[in-house]
């Protein structure tokens, strides 16, 4: 397979010591194995996420993403922007489309960018890493790379919201996207096609500001995984991962449950299945240990 180069937008939570630094490490491992070279966008900034609207306003928010696209066009010309964070991908793609459709907004964003001598051409595709895996690499090529199939593991595919709506992965339905189930099967594990909380919202940023309301939704996401006999929950989204994993103590205290369900990224599943060790697969970044994956990685 020829080496694929992409202009990579990791996002704030992927930085060293941040909440999805484990995702970053597993992404790097997965891409090494698949011969994908991640060329980070130099000096990328925060996208504003899904909460920046309150104070940010439309043009300032779109301009944040316009700066990242402009930097990518300048430093990584001809390379598609690829993000692993759902909010980064959504914000950047939304900015690209809005600035494409609205000529005045495009002009205004460029006026702001001109303050720092940047220029947006807005000709660069903005994609999610999952699109690269599904459309460019393909499930068959992934299967061909498997050294340690995750045999016997039952994994609930929790896609969440923003990797799925409003853009989604091509050819997938909003109500029941199946790419994550296919990825789970490609690494030799069993998916749960009837997992009914697959696209349920975890509360997103409101897990901070409205913890009671969000934890009620998260409780349902985990409970349904237990009901289906899942060993693990897998997700593509950093905020889904954190929200569903890290509050399980608080949820147990609130609802009298006894949850202890590991929540991992697809990139961690793939890293282990590709034969990499626990550390390369960032399994040491779990708060709820994924013992079943550690056992396979340690074999």
């Amino acid at each position, binding site marked *: 397979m020829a080496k694929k180069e992409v202009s990579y937008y990791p996002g704030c939570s992927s930085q060293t010591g941040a*909440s*999805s630094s484990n995702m970053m490490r597993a992404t790097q491992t997965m891409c090494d194995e698949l011969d994908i070279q991640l060329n980070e966008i130099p000096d990328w900034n925060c996208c504003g996420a899904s909460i920046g609207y*309150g*104070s940010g306003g439309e043009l300032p928010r779109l301009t944040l993403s316009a700066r990242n696209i402009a930097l990518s066009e300048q430093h990584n010309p001809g390379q598609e922007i690829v993000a692993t964070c759902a909010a980064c991908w959504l914000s950047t793609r939304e900015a690209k489309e809005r600035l494409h459709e609205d000529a005045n907004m495009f002009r*205004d964003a460029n006026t*702001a960018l001109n303050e720092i001598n940047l220029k947006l051409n807005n000709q660069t595709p903005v994609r999610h890493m999952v699109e690269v895996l599904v459309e460019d690499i393909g499930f068959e090529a992934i299967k061909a790379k498997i050294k340690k199939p995750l045999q016997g593991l039952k994994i609930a595919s929790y896609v969440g919201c923003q990797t799925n709506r409003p853009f989604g992965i091509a050819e997938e339905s909003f109500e029941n996207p199946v790419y994550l189930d296919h990825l789970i099967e490609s690494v030799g594990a069993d998916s749960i096609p009837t997992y009914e909380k697959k696209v349920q*919202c975890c509360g997103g940023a409101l897990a901070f500001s409205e913890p009671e309301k969000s934890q009620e939704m998260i409780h349902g996401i985990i409970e349904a995984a237990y009901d289906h006999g899942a060993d693990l929950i897998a997700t593509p989204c950093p905020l889904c991962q954190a929200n569903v994993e890290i509050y399980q103590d608080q949820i147990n205290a609130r609802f009298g449950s006894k949850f202890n369900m590991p929540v991992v990224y697809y990139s961690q599943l793939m890293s282990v299945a590709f034969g990499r060790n626990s550390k390369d697969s960032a399994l040491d970044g779990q708060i709820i240990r994924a013992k079943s994956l550690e056992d396979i990685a340690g074999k």
Partner: protein
Amino acid sequence: MSDLNSAMTERYHNSFLREVEANVEEGEWVKMCMQCGVCAGSCPLGNAWEHTPQKLFMMIRAGKREAVLSSDSMWMCTSCYNCIARCPRGLPITHIMHGLAHYAKRLGLAPKNQPTAQFSQIFWDNLMKKGRVNELKLGLSVYFKDGFGQGIKNALANKQLGQNMMKAKRMNAMEFFGGHSIKDTSGLQKMIKKAQEIEDAKIQGNS
């Protein structure tokens, strides 16, 4: 009443719908709502919304300016995009909710102490300092938003969570002293200031 709020009330006194169309992000879509209620039934926190998107759209057309802009409902949008995916008329409902919330804040009409309105300000201020979010300071700012005493209580209640995150190397105490940053922070701030000036001038021009 803020000056901008007075000016807007004067300018659009007979039509709140026109005010929304001219000044709220994606506001020109509001008149396309056919009141089917799919958005209300699709919202994950719909039960907590006093005014669902469907109701807000009708209230806008009915000229209920004060009730719409001081509502706390749109601040409970989790940005799940269910309403956008399902709206049979293709309204970008999530963006309109964000737009209404932002416009209400701009006019000084957003409900005081609404937790997500407060969080969105904390988040924006945080990212503007260094160009990237400092998660440690973000968490601390949320804990301490209601004063020192409450902050200590919140921090203690979440002590185990913080320790778990640090042990997993997903939170770093050193972020308190500086932390991650882009190189060109002053450039970014200058760029955003310009974008804000352009947007302010556009809305002032409409007042």
